[in-house]
């Protein structure tokens, strides 16, 4: 039985050119970029090149890119760094109820430290209401953090409109763009964001590296103390190898983004058509137009998510849903709960498919064919 990977929103395999580039770096460049000698300069050069490429990819300046260990660390740095730097000006933060846990859990921690957090609601489309954001803004709002693309539904938030709304406010605007970076052309100046998070392993780069874009006029309190790397915003010897791999992934991304989008769109449509061809009962969750093509969240009538996911894996289909607790069992998705309320069936029967470069049209047909008997079996229980 072939195994079909449709969980690219969780992580992607490394692009071949990334593997090649990293192998080269591994073999030839080991120096510490902070060292003043030849070997140090040699690595420093790689680091500078990577920073240049990545800054360009979002129309940012060289000095506004802070490399981190990934999206979670970048979000933590953005949130705690801003909250602690600005706490004398206010302690109010605005976010949404559908953020990733790497945003929600730092905010929960801040709440326990006396900060106040407003969670914007979403409707069934999964989008926030700009009016609600407007009405939630206060004189003491120091941070607004809203994700660009939701990792479970693929629904896009109106980041540019939010940026405009916040332009003359005290509040700093952060967006978690981990799921957007591989799909949307991002221009931080146009979006008017102050902080932006991205991650390498979602775009065919290596794990363990990401960045926080921080506009140069914005001040953060650093979270890791030590050496003066990343202009002191993030101490610790730079992960040159992973950063070089990340750069390569970004280079390919910039070349191929539109082509990839078209590929994902084709896969997305094919899957839907094939599910229909199999007469499977399903509904798509979230807005049908304001969405990225590589993520689709589908509610399968008559199924139960835990049993369905297990069955799919045993049938060679790797997909996901919500988030697993540390004991492996699936908690209902907080995103779908925010969209549909706590008692809707869709919370318990929805699955996320996320497409990748290597998926084929034929695979989508196979997936639908394998899903059919499982859905039938579960319905007849």
């Amino acid at each position, binding site marked *: 039985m072939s195994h079909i990977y449709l969980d690219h929103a969780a992580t992607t395999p490394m692009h071949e050119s990334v593997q090649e580039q990293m192998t080269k770096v591994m073999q030839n460049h080991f120096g510490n970029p902070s060292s003043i000698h030849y070997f140090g300069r040699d690595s420093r050069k790689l680091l500078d090149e990577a920073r240049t490429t990545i800054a360009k990819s979002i129309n940012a300046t060289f000095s506004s890119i802070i490399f981190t260990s990934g999206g979670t660390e970048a979000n933590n740095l953005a949130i705690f760094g801003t909250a602690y730097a600005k706490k004398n000006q206010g302690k109010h933060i605005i976010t949404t109820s559908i953020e990733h846990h790497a945003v929600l859990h730092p905010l929960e921690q801040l709440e326990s430290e006396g900060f106040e957090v407003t969670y914007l609601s979403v409707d069934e489309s999964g989008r926030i209401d700009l009016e609600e954001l407007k009405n939630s803004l206060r004189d003491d709002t120091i941070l607004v953090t809203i994700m660009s693309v939701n990792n479970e539904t693929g629904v896009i938030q109106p980041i540019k409109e939010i940026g405009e709304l916040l332009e003359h406010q005290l509040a700093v605007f952060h967006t978690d763009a981990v799921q957007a970076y591989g799909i949307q052309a991002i221009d931080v100046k146009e979006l008017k964001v102050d902080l932006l998070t991205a991650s390498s392993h979602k775009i065919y780069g290596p794990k363990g590296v990401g960045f926080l874009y921080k506009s140069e006029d914005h001040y953060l309190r650093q979270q890791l103390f030590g050496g003066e790397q990343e202009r002191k915003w993030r101490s610790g010897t730079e992960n040159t190898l992973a950063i070089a791999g990340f750069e390569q992934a970004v280079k390919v991304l910039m070349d191929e983004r539109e082509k990839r989008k078209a590929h994902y769109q084709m896969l997305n449509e094919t899957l839907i058509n094939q599910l229909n061809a199999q007469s499977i009962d399903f509904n798509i969750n979230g807005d049908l137009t304001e969405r990225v093509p590589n993520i689709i969240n589908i509610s399968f009538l008559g199924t139960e998510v*835990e*049993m369905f996911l297990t*069955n799919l894996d045993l049938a060679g289909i790797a997909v996901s849903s919500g988030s697993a*607790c540390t*004991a492996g069992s699936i908690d209902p998705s907080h995103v779908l709960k925010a969209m549909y309320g706590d008692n809707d069936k869709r919370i318990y029967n929805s699955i996320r498919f996320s497409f990748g470069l290597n998926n084929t049209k034929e695979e989508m047909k196979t997936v639908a064919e394998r899903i059919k008997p499982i859905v039938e079996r*579960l319905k007849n229980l």
Partner: protein
Amino acid sequence: MEDRSNIRVVVGMSGGVDSSVTALLLKQQGYDVVGIFMKNWDDTDEFGVCTATQDYEDVARVCNQLDIPYYSVNFENQYWDKVFQYFLNEYKAGRTPNPDVMCNKEIKFKAFLDHAIALGADYLATGHYARVRENDGVVEMLRGVDENKDQTYFLNQIPKDILPKILFPLGELDKKEVRKIAEQHDLATASKKDSTGICFIGERNFKEFLSEYLPAQPGEMQTLSGEVKGQHDGLMYYTIGQRQGLGIGGSGDAWFVVGKNLEDNVLYVEQGIEHEALYSDELLAVDLNWLVDRHLNEPIKCTAKFRYRQKDSAVTVYVNDNGTVNVQFDEPQRAITPGQAVVFYEGDVCLGGGTIDEVYHEKTKLEHLA
């Protein structure tokens, strides 16, 4: 070896050594083995970590060693409704429940079996020490060969018709062999301590646990003739025949719980481990489950266990028209406890069992047993 790669066996894995070896043996026998961890109880420790995490990690480690897929399934709601509510209700009624029996009946061999079947399983396997054998076209449940570990007592309520779908690979082994197999294969759980106590309470203080769910009503400790001997902390904390924790001083033999009066909230105590109030010669059992086809109109001469790990006693079972049974003991028995299971055997074959409801001595119901 027979090709079993198309026969799917779902193994209930707890993260303990028994279920680990169960999965190992089945894998060695060539089955398509799938490990499933059951999360039945929602509990988080002081750091917000769910206590099932460690056990699930152990399941994951063992399954990776065996190269089999593993998953988790959540039965918290079913467990709460079917097992925990029963557990609390029995305590409220002054009886001593057996949640393990109920868990096997409602969760492991019902909800979990359904789950396994929905995953395309041909068989469900667990690490219980029991055997399933086909005898002349009839499938029977037998005691595990390790007499000390035999768990048929806890399995007495599983329905007969599912036996053909059940595998108990450990039934042929004794515990020492199981540990040895785990060590030989360097399984991650080879030296893991066996879990003790009721699963949802774990290592916690039982009294403290129960008091979180049932209000404790302290009352008097009296002898059966009404002499007040002290205070009890709440009837639910005591079980028939218990010696520990009474705190009655004075000279003479130790004091024992011999009964409960729910109406007046009195705990009956008497002196001496062999006190006559602890003895009975007959019981009435309800909720009978039979694991064999029998003509039930004739009295059955067989043996019985009234609690786990007790030696068998010779009994005669009289089946009543309403399906309940009266069980007469050849020898008087000590501390028969309402709420516990009575399980019947013929040799190694487990005939079935029921729940002890009433206890008699010389045809008189022992009212002090609540």
